[in-house]
């Protein structure tokens, strides 16, 4: 088994032991579930229920809008008590359109049709079922899975890579799901493979998860699915890093993995596909790791979408000290939240309550050009140079140095001895670039509309002139004909 050498990357303290031995528990139903209509990349879903409606678990409450979107389902049976704004799980703390459901505690499921032999389904039917089940990438990006499946089938991929890297510190949700639900995951993998027509399927799991590796190997023993151990390093879970580790192939810049014949999905996504296709269960819950130095008893929970973060901490015994920072996701790329009333969504892999000691140094010192960031960057960028450009508002210079190739993994910020928030600079600059692109697109549209308008005015004027000329010509011809007739008459 050949593995390919990585470059860059860091080895943050894993801190997974606090929760990795805790089996998945089901979170008791909280009194209210706040289900946001946008939990995915793309257009938000449109609500199809009304306040007061009774819903069953798995029943559709929002339909996807447009090509890149995903539907949203009721996590349990109950009553829709509100449709409106609720604080979103986002650093801004702003609100977003949310369907609030009061569970009735009965957990009655909406019955979907289940195929007798899922492997007899047509490939595009599997993608359609995954889409209808509201499945999005559960590794954190939350990109609608059916869009990826359709695109991959159309462009043709030969290899399916399943990402079991889980390189973020603290997080153990993928580790646990691989240990406890390996056979469902393997079925899901084979379904995805069938859906896109890939000739082989590889699962990459970091070698710091021996139990997960063993469980997956046992589950995959009788199948063609290959389980591979990859070195534990961050960001191994970056899909391009995983592809490189397993296949030695490199995705072209500005391209997607499908360009080199590869489709990547997360292990939990494979589980969700199995649930949707074989059980008729839409994506209404996910595994979440609750951890951090401020949590009394870190654990892994199966959480209904929409449960407030506070409920998760409560089940884990609450806080031992006041947390210095609350984070959704892992510590490397996760987002800080200001309050615990925000709901868990499809992309929430972890909720962390961190102490100041865990967060570390916060006051930045001058850059000493030590180039530790250069060695850490998995993309091969010069973070210190790009940051210097961004600081002096030289966006063009930053882009020339590869700003757009930055994946925002934060390895540079993590290792910087001066504590410079390098990746923050890059995301800020990317935001600026996006704003510039938007305003340029707007100007372009305005210019185009203005040009069309003047062309239209010109055309109308010209048509009018031509019509007048034609009339004149017709009149002249008529007169000429009349004169000719008169002459003929006179001659006769």
């Amino acid at each position, binding site marked *: 088994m050949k593995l390919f050498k990585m470059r860059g990357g860091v080895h943050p303290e894993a801190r997974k032991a606090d929760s990795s031995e805790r089996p998945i528990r089901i979170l008791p139903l909280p009194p209210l579930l706040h289900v946001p209509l946008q939990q995915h990349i793309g257009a938000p879903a449109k609500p199809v229920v009304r306040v007061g409606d009774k819903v069953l678990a798995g029943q559709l409450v929002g339909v996807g809008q447009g090509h890149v979107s995903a539907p949203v389902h009721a996590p349990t049976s109950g009553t829709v008590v509100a449709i409106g704004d609720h604080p979103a799980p986002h650093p801004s703390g702003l609100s977003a359109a949310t369907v609030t459901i009061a569970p009735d505690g009965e957990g009655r499921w909406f019955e979907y049709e289940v195929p007798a032999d899922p492997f007899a389904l047509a490939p595009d039917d599997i993608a359609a079922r995954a889409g209808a089940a509201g499945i999005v990438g559960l590794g954190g990006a939350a990109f609608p899975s059916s869009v990826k499946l359709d695109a991959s089938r159309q462009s043709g991929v030969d290899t399916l890579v399943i990402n079991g890297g889980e390189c973020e510190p603290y997080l153990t949700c993928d580790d646990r799901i691989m240990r406890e639900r390996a056979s469902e995951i393997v079925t899901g993998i084979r379904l995805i493979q069938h859906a896109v027509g890939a000739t082989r399927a590889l699962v990459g799991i970091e070698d710091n998860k021996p139990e997960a590796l063993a469980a997956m190997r046992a589950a995959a023993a009788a199948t063609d699915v290959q389980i591979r151990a990859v070195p534990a390093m961050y960001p191994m879970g970056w899909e391009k890093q995983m592809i490189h580790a397993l296949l030695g192939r*490199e995705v072209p*810049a500005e391209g997607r993995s499908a360009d080199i014949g590869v489709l990547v999905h997360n292990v939990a996504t494979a589980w969700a596909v199995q649930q949707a296709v074989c059980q008729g269960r839409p994506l209404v819950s996910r595994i979440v790791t609750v951890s951090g130095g401020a949590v009394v008893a870190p654990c892994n929970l199966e959480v209904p979408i929409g449960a407030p973060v506070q409920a998760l901490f409560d089940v884990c015994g609450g806080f031992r000290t006041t947390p210095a920072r609350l*984070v959704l996701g892992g510590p490397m790329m996760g987002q*800080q939240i200001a309050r615990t009333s925000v709901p868990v969504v499809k992309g929430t892999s972890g909720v962390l309550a961190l102490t100041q000691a865990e967060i570390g140094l916060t006051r930045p010192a001058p850059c*000493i050009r030590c180039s530790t960031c*250069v060695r850490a960057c998995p993309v091969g960028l010069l973070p210190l140079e790009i940051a210097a450009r961004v600081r002096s508002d030289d966006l063009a210079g930053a882009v020339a*140095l590869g700003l757009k190739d930055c994946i925002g993994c934060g390895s540079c910020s993590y290792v910087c001895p*001066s*504590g410079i928030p390098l*990746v923050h600079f890059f995301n800020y600059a990317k935001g600026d670039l996006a704003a510039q692109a938007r305003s340029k697109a707007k100007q372009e549209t305005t210019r185009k509309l203005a040009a069309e308008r003047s062309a239209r005015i010109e055309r109308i004027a010209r048509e009018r002139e031509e019509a007048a000329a034609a009339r004149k010509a017709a009149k002249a011809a008529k007169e000429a004909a009349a004169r000719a007739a008169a002459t003929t008459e006179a001659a006769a």
Partner: protein
Amino acid sequence: MTTIAHSPHARAANSVSRIMATVMLALVPVTLFGFWLNGWPAVYLWTVSLAAALVGEAAALKFQRRAVKPALLDGSGVLTAWLLALSLPPWAPWWIAVVGSLFAVVIAKQVFGGLGQNVFNPAMAARVMLLISFPLEMTIWVPPMSQPGLLDSLAVTFGGGQLDAVSSASLLGHVKTEFSRGLGLEQALAGHYAPLEALWGRRSGSLGETSALLIFIGGVFLLARRTITWHAPVAMLAGVALPALLMNLVAPEHYADPVYHLLSGGVMLAAFFIVTDPVTSPNTALGQLLFGLGCGLLTYVIRTWGSYPEGVAFAVMLMNAATPLIDRNIKPRIYGRTRQGAPLMTRHAKKDAA
């Protein structure tokens, strides 16, 4: 109201002051050896260097209305003065240390904008300035193990010392002088050079440059702690050794062997502690290789054909000046792109092209 911080929400246990402290720790053996070899004047000189750097940096920061405490606590000024002191003749008068340290931290560092902004290695810039301005004081050496008492030592460092009575010569200086008298290499080295002595350091020379072995041990410690990488040190040693080997093969009667060059003067100290200065060296591994190689080659050229017996400081400064050029032209290949920056070809594009 919570302030919202950007990811990552974790940091490696590292800091600028920790890096500086690690380097200082690596310098302890060779410094103690220098004290033992050269007696109390060396201790005084080292102390004066560090004190002058602290006072000078504090004054410069105050003058610029910048925070004094964090800048002094990062340890970079102390380390600069420490490295400068190690490169001075151990019995140099106190004012050499003061002028050198002030030049290093104020002119070579603070004037350029402080930590991380300087173009030239401050210790080397100060050494070059001292060498040009005070050639006499900078080339008076003492025989090893001349250890005057505490009070006599005060006189040596702070005035009234009888330097002439004990003056000696460094190996490189001695050989250069003998060459100018028309003597061959063999005669020049006779009785002055024993490779083993040079290795462990019982000989005349700068305060902290005589023991190649202890410097090497400090360097290995830094490599093991990953404070430095191997690229620049190995390249610098190769840059000195390769031309020395070549010239020695061509004309052994006039050109010394590589071991002589590696163990003499400031090569070892520079290879592990100067060309590894992050601020003034290139960012990439390949850049650091070129940089180190340039430092080594120039050192050899200046030593062999220049008018100064030692060329390390000049070589380092010249390569410091070339660092922006190296960084501009040598960049890592970006993932998914060719070296020129174009996206790699996709499978489909390759098929279309075929």
